């Protein structure tokens, strides 16, 4: 190939990539910079002006409501992350490792994805008749004579938020783990077995370490989604559980843009730290 065509090809790929880069710069990068910028603006009751101030930042860290929301977000995130992992891993183990036929494991994964075709908000709302005092779970437990009084802590508590989020997000944990487990060379497991290793030992020494990149990818998916949540907590906690996302929504609702931005920056920082920590555990570029 002559130099002229190489140069023209290179120019060609610049033109191809440019629209996408511009779009992402304008509608992703600039908006996020905007959040940082506006968090230092001066907020009055009905107005906001670009005079720089730290007032909103001070207000965030001096108020129990806001710092409380930060800790609630971290707590709910950790609990949901642990739950999705504990509930999802055995499923992934079965789908990725124990099912021999590729067709069956694909079918199982598709079955896991079908619920996503129902609108997200309606899926969240469906937990209300499920968990309520006269909800499906209480009715079933009472019919089975396991309980005599309906359990009331099921709905409009932190527990209901955790249950709802776990159900909505656990599939994002199952998928990546099952994918990594499916790639394990079965001969390694056979070899370990021939050398007399029990299943527990094989699991901890071979299977689990090899599935770790999948766990990290799943954990990043779940973390990003749970940290940015506000709809599930709003609908299932009866406004008792306030996450950072809920603070942003209510602040924007009352036109407190500066406070919403401060909360947004804090959410971004938390998320960045979480993702960086996960990428520390496993070097994804090397594994995938």
């Amino acid at each position, binding site marked *: 190939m002559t130099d002229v065509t190489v140069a023209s090809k*290179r120019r*060609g*790929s*610049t033109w*191809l990539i440019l629209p*996408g*880069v511009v779009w*992402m*710069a*304008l*509608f*992703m*990068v*600039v*908006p*996020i*910079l905007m*959040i940082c910028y506006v968090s230092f*603006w001066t907020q009055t009751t009905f107005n*906001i002006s670009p005079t720089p101030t730290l007032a909103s930042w001070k207000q965030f860290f001096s108020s129990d409501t806001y710092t409380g929301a930060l800790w609630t977000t971290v707590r709910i995130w950790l609990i949901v992350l642990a739950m999705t992992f504990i*509930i999802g891993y*055995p*499923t992934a*183990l*079965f789908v990725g490792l*124990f099912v021999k036929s590729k067709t069956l494991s694909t079918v199982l994964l598709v*079955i896991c994805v079908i*619920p996503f*075709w*129902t*609108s997200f*908000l*309606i*899926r969240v*709302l*469906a*937990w*209300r*008749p*499920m968990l309520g005092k006269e*909800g*499906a779970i209480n009715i079933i437990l009472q019919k089975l004579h396991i309980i005599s009084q309906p359990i009331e802590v099921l709905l409009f508590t932190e527990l209901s938020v955790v249950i709802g989020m776990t*159900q909505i997000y656990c599939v994002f944990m199952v998928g990546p783990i099952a994918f990594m487990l499916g790639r394990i060379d079965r001969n390694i497991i056979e070899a370990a077995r021939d050398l007399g290793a029990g*299943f527990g030992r094989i699991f901890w020494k071979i299977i689990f370490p090899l599935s770790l990149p999948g766990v990290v990818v799943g954990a990043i998916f779940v973390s*990003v*989604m749970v*940290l*940015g949540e*506000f*709809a599930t907590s*709003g*609908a299932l906690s009866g406004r008792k559980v306030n996450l950072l*996302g809920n603070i942003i*929504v209510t602040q*924007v609702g009352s036109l407190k*843009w500066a406070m919403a*931005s401060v909360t*947004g920056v804090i*959410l*971004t920082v938390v998320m960045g730290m979480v993702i960086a920590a996960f990428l520390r555990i496993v070097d994804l570029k090397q594994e995938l």
Partner: protein
Amino acid sequence: MESRVLKPILAVYVVAFILFLYGPFFVLTIISFQQGPDGGPQFPITEWSLYWYKQIFGLTPPSRIAPLPVGEALVRSLILAFMTMVTATVLGVMSAQAFRRKFRGSTFVFYMIVLGMMVPGVLTGLGTSLLANNVIGITRHWYTTAFATHVAYTYPFAFLVMLAILNRFDASVEEAAWSLGVKPWTTFRKVTFPLIFPGVLSAMLFAFTLSLDEFPRSLFAAGGSEDQTLPLAIYGTFSVEIHPNIFAFGVLTTLFSFALLSVYGILMAMSVRRARKLAMQEDIA
């Protein structure tokens, strides 16, 4: 052997897991057949009826419960999803095509694009509305600001799908066309595009369904009530009392998704069959 014990246990566990995933959907389907207009969104079912389905289509006499305000919102959402689908897929195909050659800053550009699917909607939505509302000073609409955020969200998915397709793409057919003197654009249209079409379909499906159900970005980036998309209309009912009509609507939208997916499946099967037929003709020749 342990797996003889473990495998059945895990199989039972997976069944329980699937029940857990489907539980809410079963419950919402049952409750959507609740008697109306007095039956509430809870058990027991006082009487099985189609009342709430009829109400969605405006076939019931007016009652104290207002019908869901979904008509116009649905139209808006469909148009928005279509616009998003076209834009995101075009951008995705272009960028993936550019990534077939190494260029300076490609790693940076890659992460910048992928960021769009990683950053939570609350943040993109908030940032975009700050930009529009406070810095530039324009009114937010579903077809402007919300559209921009929807594309920024779905374009990374389209890009990754196309990247995966083009990674497995045999470039020698293109080179053959070029060496025969076919212009690059014609080559793309006549050779490359038909070959990557199944990927384009998947990218379109991703963009359409993600945009249709997109909620946090729209919440911030769309304007007032005349700008409501479908998820926003549903969200509007959160604050007031909920009725079984929302569950009936959920069942209907799920069926619609199934229909959409069937169309996708048929188109996919057709394109695979056509490719196979072409290959067979080549073999005969």
